[in-house]
Structures are given as structure tokens and as C-alpha cells.
């Protein structure tokens, strides 16, 4: 018995030793829509970008290109139209072996995730050399309505909103991507305004075509919000970005949308550039973006500013995001000046003290945007407005499974405000009520604003139904508030009911009702959203 085990063990060891020799033949072990994984006994001598071949009657034909590799595996993309099957054999032609030890590399994607962008894997490499790209089309059409029902004092009001979003990536296997995010919104009594100017209702946030010349070079034309510069808003024109390893450099040139109706306005030229750095450490990532933007109106400087954004998860359990914007241009009383005025600051950090306890803190200091040419008719008022500052602290604690406790406190103040706004909120949620399997939340809010003092007592229950395709919720709040100016108590009973239902494939329905009842008056509001993905 012992001898047999010895023989088996020896055979295994021989096999393992044989594997270490690294024959250049590999086996297809895994196929995804974008990638083909090939396992070798050793990839020694193979490098990213190398071509792998398949033996056919007429000899070796190129079929794959290596995107990344580990000591025994390669992540590849197909060349040409060859259809792969599991266990297909491919051949590599390693370069002359280097001296020294090869460090094993995990088979992971090093692509960074860019907000708002689609899968990076869909954009890898250019189409030079016959690299095949896979076309993907995702989108959604949404119809929403916000309705306030008629009551004794007010006529009803209804706002309808239609949203179409779509991203067609790698069209026809090329590097071309088309994207749009467009809404059309109007109230039932607003048609005259819409007829007068379509852009009173039509808002185009994204209507762009992008072309990836390679994995590291992207050109975008049309209207698009650059995720690295979202505070700039939409850019009508050209955006070009080139990556140099962990660095990205980009330039933008075009127009900013009209400041009254968000249409295209060729008088509002803007240009700028940005540098972004992406660093991946052992525990997380760090991303920095520095941008300079000049915005004009009829050839005159309207606004000039720098923007810096930093996000960091390098320290274990600590997540940090910060952004700061500083105006570099000021025009007061006809005098143009170069300045450095902090305009917007936002900091948000979250720290997981222990697995069940998370703390978060955010601070913002915000001013109204000042375009010195566009807003010169009411510039005095804008210049007079003070900075709005806000603090928000939150703690979440999960002492036992399914029980969530939390509190948050907020403070907001602008110097013109009669009083600072303060509020504090505590809640307790238990997500698995025995027998019914529902989630129950009880909460309490204390609030103090410039006009109101009060407390809110609330309770809510929600539950997934129909195999988690239907989510239902019920809430009740009692609002005990006093209108400070007249020492007038305005108690309110607020009831809410909501349904979210994925009722047919990718068709999603949300209905939400909110009823607010005062002593002699009730307000009823209904939200409906019907969304179809494709």
C-alpha cells in the first residue's frame, strides 16, 4: 500500500517538475466575451503583446495576442475570426530566456475604473493588427411622473420626464463608442414655454462619439461631462485623453452649454487641460486630478479656475475624497484681476473603525458660480452672497447580524441666514423580522432651521416579495414642528407607500406615494417611474 502511494507521489512530483520546464504549448482554459485564457506550464519567455499561434495544415497561424500574463497563464484577445473552444492548443514562441527569476504575476486586470465609462475591456488596444473588439449596446428608456394631487387650496400639478440613455461601445468591432443621456421634461401646463423654446424641456447631458485609437488614447466629440471634471459640467466640443502608464493627460476645447436653457451656445467658448494620476497600492488606490479651465463669453473671459480632486483608499479601512476649486479671475467694477479665491471645497471621508462600526464626516464650502460676463446684470448680488458651509457626521454600527444602528448630525450655515440649520437623526433597523422576513426601521429626527423647530418620529417597514422582484415599503412619520416666526405649531402626519417591481424582464416599475396631512389640509404626491433597459 505504502509503495503504491510512493509511486503516485513520485509521479506527481515528476509531473510538477516536468511542468516547470515550460514547453511553449498552451491550452485554452477559459473563454469570455472579451478574453481568452490560456494556460501554459510556464510562460517564461512570453511577454505582453506577444502573438500565440495555432497549428493548422498550412502551418502556424496567428490567433491570439497576449494582454497580460502570469507565470503559467495568459489573458489574450483574439486575432481575426477564429472561433475558440476549450482545450484548444496554441503555441507560443518565447524570446530567449532571461537570466534571473521570473516573478509570478496574478492574472488580474490592471485597468482602472473610470466613472461613467463602460467596461475598459471593451476598449483595449486599437484595431490595428486586427484586434477584435466586441460591440456592446446598453441603454435605458425611462418615463417618470411627479404628481401633486389637487387639494382644497391648490390645483394639481404634474411633471412628466422622459429619459433616454444609451451607450453603444466598440461599434462594429471598432473603437467607436456612441453615448447619450437625454431627458425631456415638462409640466402639463408648460406647453407654451416648450413651443417657445424646445430647450425649456429638452436637456441633453450627453450626446457624444468617442474613438479609442488605442487603450491609451481616446478622442471624444460632442457633448459630454468628463468624469474627471464633473464640476465643469458638460463640454460641447472635443476632449482628448492620452495615458502614459499611471498618468493621464487630457485637453478639452469647445463650448459650455447655454446658461439659460442648456442648449448649444457658440459664444461660450471654453478650453482647458488636466492631468490625472492613478496609483494602485496594496490596500487600495489613489487618484489625483488637476485641471485648468478657461471659460469665455463672446471672447471675453467669463471664468478661469483650477480644479483639484483627490481620492484615496490606500490606508486600510479609510476612504477619502476631496475636491477644491479656485477662481483665478475676478472682474469687479470693470477691473480685471488675477486672483486665487477658493470657490468650492468638498471633503468626504469614511473610516471603518471595526468591522461593525463606520464613521464618516463630510465638509463643504460652496459659493454660487460667478460668470463675470454672463451674469454681469446681477453681479453685485452674486458677489454679495456668502459661502454656504456644511458639516455632516455619520456613524453606523451593526452590533449583531441584521441589526443596524446609526446616527447622523448636520450643520449648515450661510452668513445671511437668520439662523444656522442643525439637525440630528438616529435610527435602528432590523432586517430580518422573524416569520415575516421584513425589515423594520424606527427613527427620530431633531431639526432646527431658520424658520422651523421640530422633531420627527418615524417608523417604516419594507420587504422583498415575489422572489425579490417586488420591493414594498410603508412608512409613517409624525412631524411635531413650530413655525418660529409666528410661534405657530404645524403638526403633520406623513404616510408613504412604495413599490418597486421588476415585473417583466428588464422592465422596472416604481410607484411611490407620499401623503402629508395637516390639521385642515392634505397634500398628496405620487411618483411613478417606468424603466426599460436594453
Amino acid at each position, binding site marked *: 500500500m*505504502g509503495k503504491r502511494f510512493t509511486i*503516485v*507521489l513520485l509521479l506527481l512530483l515528476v509531473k*510538477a517538475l516536468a511542468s516547470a520546464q515550460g514547453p511553449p504549448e498552451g491550452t485554452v482554459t477559459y473563454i*469570455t*466575451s472579451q*478574453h481568452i*485564457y490560456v*494556460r501554459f506550464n510556464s510562460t517564461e519567455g512570453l511577454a505582453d503583446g506577444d502573438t500565440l499561434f495555432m497549428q493548422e495544415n498550412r502551418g502556424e497561424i496567428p490567433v491570439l495576442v497576449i494582454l497580460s500574463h502570469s507565470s*503559467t497563464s495568459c*489573458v489574450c484577445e483574439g486575432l481575426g475570426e477564429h472561433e475558440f473552444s476549450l482545450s484548444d492548443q496554441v503555441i507560443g514562441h518565447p524570446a530567449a530566456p532571461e537570466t534571473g527569476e521570473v516573478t*509570478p504575476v496574478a492574472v488580474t486586470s490592471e*485597468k482602472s475604473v473610470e466613472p*461613467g465609462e463602460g*467596461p475598459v475591456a471593451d476598449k483595449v488596444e486599437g484595431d490595428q493588427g486586427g484586434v477584435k473588439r466586441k460591440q456592446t449596446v446598453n441603454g435605458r428608456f425611462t418615463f417618470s411622473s411627479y404628481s401633486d394631487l389637487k387639494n382644497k*387650496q391648490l390645483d394639481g*400639478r404634474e*411633471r412628466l420626464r422622459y429619459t433616454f440613455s444609451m451607450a453603444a461601445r466598440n461599434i462594429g468591432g471598432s473603437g467607436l463608442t456612441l453615448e447619450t*443621456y437625454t431627458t425631456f*421634461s415638462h409640466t402639463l401646463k408648460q406647453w407654451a414655454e416648450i413651443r417657445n423654446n424646445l430647450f425649456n424641456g429638452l*436637456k441633453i*447631458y*450627453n450626446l457624444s462619439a468617442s474613438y479609442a485609437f488605442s487603450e491609451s488614447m481616446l478622442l471624444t466629440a460632442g457633448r459630454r*461631462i468628463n468624469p474627471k471634471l*464633473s*464640476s*465643469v*459640467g458638460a463640454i460641447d466640443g472635443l476632449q482628448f485623453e492620452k495615458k502614459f502608464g499611471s498618468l493621464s493627460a487630457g485637453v478639452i476645447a469647445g463650448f459650455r*452649454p*447655454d446658461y439659460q436653457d*442648456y442648449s448649444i451656445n457658440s459664444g461660450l467658448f471654453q478650453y482647458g487641460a488636466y492631468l490625472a494620476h492613478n496609483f494602485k497600492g496594496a490596500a487600495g488606490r489613489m487618484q489625483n486630478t488637476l485641471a485648468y479651465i478657461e471659460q469665455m463669453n463672446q471672447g471675453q473671459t467669463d471664468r478661469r479656475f483650477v480644479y483639484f480632486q483627490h481620492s484615496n483608499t490606500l490606508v486600510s479601512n479609510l476612504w477619502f475624497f476631496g475636491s477644491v476649486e479656485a477662481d483665478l479671475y475676478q472682474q469687479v467694477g470693470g477691473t480685471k484681476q488675477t486672483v486665487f479665491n477658493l470657490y468650492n471645497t468638498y471633503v468626504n471621508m469614511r473610516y471603518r473603525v471595526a468591522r461593525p462600526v463606520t464613521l464618516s464626516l463630510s465638509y*463643504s464650502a*460652496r*459659493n*454660487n458660480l460667478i460668470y463675470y460676463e454672463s451674469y454681469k446684470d446681477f453681479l453685485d448680488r452674486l458677489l454679495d*452672497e456668502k459661502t*454656504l458651509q456644511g458639516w*455632516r457626521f455619520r456613524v453606523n454600527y451593526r452590533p449583531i447580524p441584521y441589526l443596524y444602528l446609526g446616527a447622523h448630525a448636520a450643520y449648515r450655515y450661510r452668513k*445671511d*441666514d*437668520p439662523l444656522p*440649520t442643525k439637525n440630528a437623526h438616529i435610527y435602528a433597523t432590523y432586517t430580518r423580522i422573524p416569520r415575516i422576513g421584513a425589515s423594520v426601521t424606527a427613527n427620530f*429626527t431633531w*431639526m432646527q432651521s*431658520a*424658520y*422651523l423647530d421640530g422633531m*420627527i418620529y418615524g417608523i417604516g417597514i419594507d420587504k422583498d416579495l415575489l422572489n*425579490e422582484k417586488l420591493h414594498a415599503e410603508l412608512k409613517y412619520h409624525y412631524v411635531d414642528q413650530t413655525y418660529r416666526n*409666528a410661534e*405657530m405649531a*404645524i403638526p403633520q402626519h406623513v404616510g408613504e407607500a412604495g413599490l418597486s417591481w*421588476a415585473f417583466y424582464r*428588464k422592465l*422596472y416599475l*416604481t410607484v*411611490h406615494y407620499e401623503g402629508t396631512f395637516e390639521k385642515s389640509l392634505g397634500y398628496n*404626491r405620487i411618483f411613478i417611474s417606468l*424603466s426599460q*433597459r436594453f
Partner: protein
Amino acid sequence: MRILPLILPALLFLFVHATRQTDSPHGDNFKIPCNKCHSAKGWELDMEIYSYDHNTANMPLLGQHAQTKCRQCHISLVFSEAQTDCYQCHTDLHEQTVGNDCDRCHTPYSWIVNNITDIHRQGRFPLLGAHLTADCNSCHQSASSLRFEPLGVDCVDCHLAEYQATTQPNHVEGSLGTACEECHSITAFSWSGAGFSHQFFPLTGGHDIQDCNRCHTPGDFSRTPAECYACHQDDYLATTNPAHQASGFSTDCMLCHTTQPGWKPADFRIHDGEFFPIYSGSHRGEWDSCTQCHEDPNNYSSFTCLTCHEHSQSRMDNAHSEERNYSYNSMACLDCHPTGRGGD
């Protein structure tokens, strides 16, 4: 050799484990068993046997995330690299004007904001009255409709145009001030009528009338004086008990009257300081009407003490024989006895 049966499974385990680590495209420390997602059909995701509970991950698939294609979030096959903060996948259409705590307004079930009232309760401007049903774009007037600039919380920050356009009364010409809440209630549904607070001129007592035109020129609220006499001149002139005009009474009605109907009680408290103490001292409570002392209703400068104080002139003459400038009339009494007491 007896330990071989133990060594062999251990080596096999290490071998298989090492193989799995290098073969898996899902990264290091990936602990989900393959058969949660894959079957013998191949390495494609087999939805027929898929049994991984995504709710155990850092990002439970709530709401519409459950309908989203896996690769829209999992850009690489290393699932731990998927981002969990909203803004990392969703472009910020608010242009960083509201921070990146998206869950304060949105839920995974819909982008629709169904807690508008609650958001405002925790903000600087809780929604009351007509504000509860106002269209969002009425206040948040950015061109894109989604950029939320800081707004002032004073009424005039949003209603300046109404203030400037109002002609009845003309707020600008009348320098009515921009503290709208002094006249208009935040819970109101209109600027006028029931929505108008008359607290600057309380409509109480005799002013509790429903016919605005009794004070205001019909359709014109811009030149309504607040002085009593402006409206009550006829009453002043017609009053005979006492005859206000003939007696030269002040037209500052508030000196004697309140807004109680019927002009009563009329209360002339300054009588004590300026003329003679009748609300204090020995005369307090000793009189019922003005005419007890002022017998001539057309001349309140004349009065008599003798209605109540029955004196014999001869006895008074004897008693004041040593007083210079003595004469037997009420005016002379007052001159020497300004508080009404004999000892003064």
C-alpha cells in the same frame, strides 16, 4: 511509510490549491466555490446553476442593480475590483454641487427622488404651504435643471421679482421692506386674501371686518394710512360726548381709545400727569363720566369740583381768608390743590 497516507492528500491539496490560485481569473484570495457560477458545460457563467448570494458581498444587488449586466460593474474578472461608491460608476450630472453621498436622495430602486419633503426638512428650507407642492425648477433654476447652487432662505431670495412687480400696494415705492414674512405667511397659498397676514395692523376688535373697502380704496392698497384719524375723521367730528373737535381733543385717538368696538372703554390716562389725577389718588374710582366734572361738553377746559364737593362759599371764604389770590371757583381750587387733597 505510514505517514504517506497523510502526506499525499496534503500535497494534493497544496497542488490543487496552488493550481487554482494561478488558474483563477478572479484574483487572489477568491473564495467563492467555482460551482456557484460554473458547471461542467464550460467556464461561461451558467445561470441555471448560479447560486452565489450577492447580498453577502460589499454591494448587495438592490433594486435596479439586480437587473444590471454584471460586466457594467465588474469591468475586470477580479470581482473585488468593482467599485461600490455610486459616483465611481455614475457620472455626476449635478456637477459636484451636492457632494457624492448619492443615497441622501436616490435609492437603488430608482433615480426618482421620492423623499423631497424629507430632504428639505433636513436642509435650510423645510417645505411648508405652497412650497410643498412647488415645482422643483421654480426654485432650483439652473440651466441643466440638475445643478443645485446654494440658495438663500429669505423669501426675497426667490420672490424678488414678485416684490418688484407688485403694485397693490407698490412695495418698492412704499419702501415696504423685504421681510416678506411680516405680511405673508410661509404656509399660505397666495400673496393676498387669506394668504395675507395683517399682523402689521392687527384686524382685531373693531377692525375685525371682512370688507377691505371700508379702509382701502377699492382695488388700491397702496395708499392706506395707518393713522386712526384718517379713517375715523367722521367719528371724531360727530362725537358730542364729549365733543372732540369743539374741545380741541387730539386726533391721536390711541391716547384714549383702543380698537375695541364702540370706542369704549375710552381711557385718558394722561389726565393724571397733564391735568389732574383722576386715575390715581383720592379721585380714583370716584367718577363715572367726564361730564361729572366737565359739565360743558363743548369745552373741556372748563370743569367744576363742586358737583361732588359741596362747599359753602362763606365757609370757604373764611377758611381761605389768609390766602392770597383766593377766589371761589374750581380753577382756583385746582391751582392750590393740584392733587385734589386739601393739605396740598
